[in-house]
């Protein structure tokens, strides 16, 4: 087991050389590996000087949670244990982060919903912890493939939400996530989402920096609220006569605080832009009149559809959203210039991304927006389904 007292100015407690996020993410040489998403998450955590992790088993992410446990046994993570259930785990994560620890956990759809009350509480207390959410179906009947419905529930918790497409993005994003969440002017929790099973269980080529370097540790005294460690006088959060006892004070406090949390998420934009190299990534033909607005593995399938459409002489482009909170509205509008038809392929039945896109584009685009196709979980999204949706729109009645 590692000891925090083994930390020096240049090396963390496990002996890794401390580097800046820029060095770790952009400058350090990388080598090719072949790994699953769960394994790559272990590699990311290994390079993040993580103080605490709490785990609970669930498919599809259970391997990731136990791999973080292995890291702890190897001396890379400060403290690690299995909680009693997800509500307990998210509460334990809250405690760890309040006490000044860089904290990470991971779960999936059912665990997320069981723990739901905690996420709004996390953002309310401005802890910068990270949840890796490997999306999985939540509706009956049972499935371990994503219908990413739980993401829709998370959107209004006040947390930052990022969405990774593949194993490589999961690695880079989960490192950048700590860095952005911990910026003193942001300091709100972050949910890094991937589509479980497709990303957690599939093996892909991934470029990783060496594992003898790691991020500088979390500095809890830069937090906008004092950490709960008795080292500084207590903060005034919930210290004034209990806000609920006056409707006026309650309104003023609660409303201003909620707006402040949302403003903090907005303030994350420039940092996210730097560390993610842009909030949206666009591929395909620049002058296309057809665009797919996507996130997660739907982006991968849309790119495949884009290549097939190209063979048929139809130009299209894929605009992949990498942050959902904050929503990259301006970047999306810019990327959509000249586009006449917008398609939003999704893995869920409610079309939460379509709603987000329509809200952002209301009165800002002439293009028509098609919310589809939707595969509603339990299966992958065939490129043919996307192509069919396009053909029915631009070539009505004739199909693909």
């Amino acid at each position, binding site marked *: 087991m590692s000891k925090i007292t083994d930390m020096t100015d240049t090396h963390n407690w496990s002996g890794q050389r401390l580097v800046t996020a820029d060095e770790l993410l952009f400058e350090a040489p990388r080598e090719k590996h072949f790994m699953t998403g769960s394994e790559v998450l272990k590699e990311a955590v290994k390079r993040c000087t993580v103080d605490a992790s709490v785990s609970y088993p669930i498919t599809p992410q259970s391997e990731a949670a136990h791999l973080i446990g292995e890291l702890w046994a190897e001396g890379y993570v400060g403290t690690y244990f299995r909680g009693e259930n997800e509500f307990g785990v998210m509460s334990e994560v809250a405690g*760890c982060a309040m006490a000044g620890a860089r904290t990470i956990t991971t779960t999936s759809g059912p665990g997320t919903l069981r723990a739901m009350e905690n996420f709004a509480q996390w953002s309310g207390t401005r802890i910068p912890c990270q949840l890796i959410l490997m999306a999985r179906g939540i509706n009956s009947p049972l499935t371990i493939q994503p219908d990413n419905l739980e993401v829709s529930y998370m959107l209004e918790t006040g947390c930052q939400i990022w969405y990774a497409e593949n194993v490589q993005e999961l690695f880079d994003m989960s490192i950048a996530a700590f860095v952005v969440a911990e910026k003193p002017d942001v300091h709100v929790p972050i949910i890094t989402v991937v589509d479980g099973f497709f990303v957690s269980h599939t093996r892909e080529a991934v470029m990783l920096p060496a594992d003898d370097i790691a991020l500088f540790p979390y500095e809890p005294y830069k937090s906008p609220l004092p950490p709960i460690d008795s*080292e500084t*006088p207590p903060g005034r959060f919930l210290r004034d006569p209990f806000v609920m006892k006056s409707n006026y004070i309650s309104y003023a406090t609660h409303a201003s605080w909620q707006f402040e949390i949302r403003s903090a998420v907005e303030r994350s934009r420039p940092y996210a832009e730097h560390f993610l190299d842009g909030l949206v990534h666009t591929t395909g033909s620049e002058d296309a009149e057809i665009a797919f607005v996507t996130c997660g593995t739907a982006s991968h399938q849309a790119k495949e559809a884009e290549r097939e459409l190209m063979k048929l002489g139809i130009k299209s482009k894929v605009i992949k959203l990498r942050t959902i909170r904050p929503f990259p509205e301006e970047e999306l509008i810019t990327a959509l210039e000249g586009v006449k038809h917008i398609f939003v392929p999704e893995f869920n039945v409610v079309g939460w991304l379509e709603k987000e896109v329509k809200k952002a584009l209301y009165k800002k685009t002439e293009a028509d927006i098609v919310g589809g196709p939707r595969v509603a979980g339990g299966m992958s999204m065939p490129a043919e389904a996307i192509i069919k949706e396009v053909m029915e729109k631009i070539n009505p009645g004739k199909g693909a």
Partner: protein
Amino acid sequence: MAIDIYKINPEFRDIMPQEIIDLEEKATWAQNQDKPRGIKELPQSKELLEEHSLCAGCPEAAALRYVLSALPKPEETIIVNSTGCTSLMFPHIALHTVHSLFGNQNAVATGIKRVLDWRFPDTEKDVVVLAGDGATVDIGLDYTLQSFFRQENITTICFDNEVYANTGGQESGATPKGQVFKMAPTGKKFDKVPMWKLATTSGCHYSINMTASAPKAVAKAVREAILVAREIGPTFLNIYTPCILEIGLSANEGLGEMKEQDKDRFESYKYISPEAEEFLAKCKEEGRL
């Protein structure tokens, strides 16, 4: 931690009520770092503002004052509490406290304690949970017991008023059988949950059932329980603090009610594990008790 645990911003000092200045100047914090603190200091000291938002005469307010006076190291203590009447008192003390959600107090406390042990390996930092019976025995029972199973080094104190007071008087698991309360319109159907016995069988090294009628006894139990939790493992105190409002007593009748119950339902129960017993004897020898 600095002794200056609670400092008023000098620019606001002249508009602060005297009560708050007293809280800064007369809290017993570090005055007796080597000797045990205790309720004998309460007349001169200030632990809790009188202008708290509990009902006048609520025994919870007195009991919290006893608890605070008995903390072995208040400047290194974090109290985790839960939604309920108890949470209304915490804005009125000069200590690090956490109010998280209703029922997750032992889980939050677990996270805090584990991280403090990791971040400050050479400092003893105490984590104490203080919550109502609804939070401890009902919605939070899983988290309470699991923290005992896992042998977390925390002290759990239940202010057992035998009712959900803050939501207006519903039956809880700690309500005696037969009692008519809201949501138990024909009387509660099952016996009071013997949380102190569950604590014993779930791994607590120190478990007590008592009322808050005798300040010295409460203070002694708190101090012993925290020392045992720090060194050995989880500890639990169930303290009867009746909700005078819900059982129809006036402000001056709380003490009488507790004394009455001392002889009856809250006849003292005390379990100390052999390791804890040995450790407490050593503490006594060293003058820590």
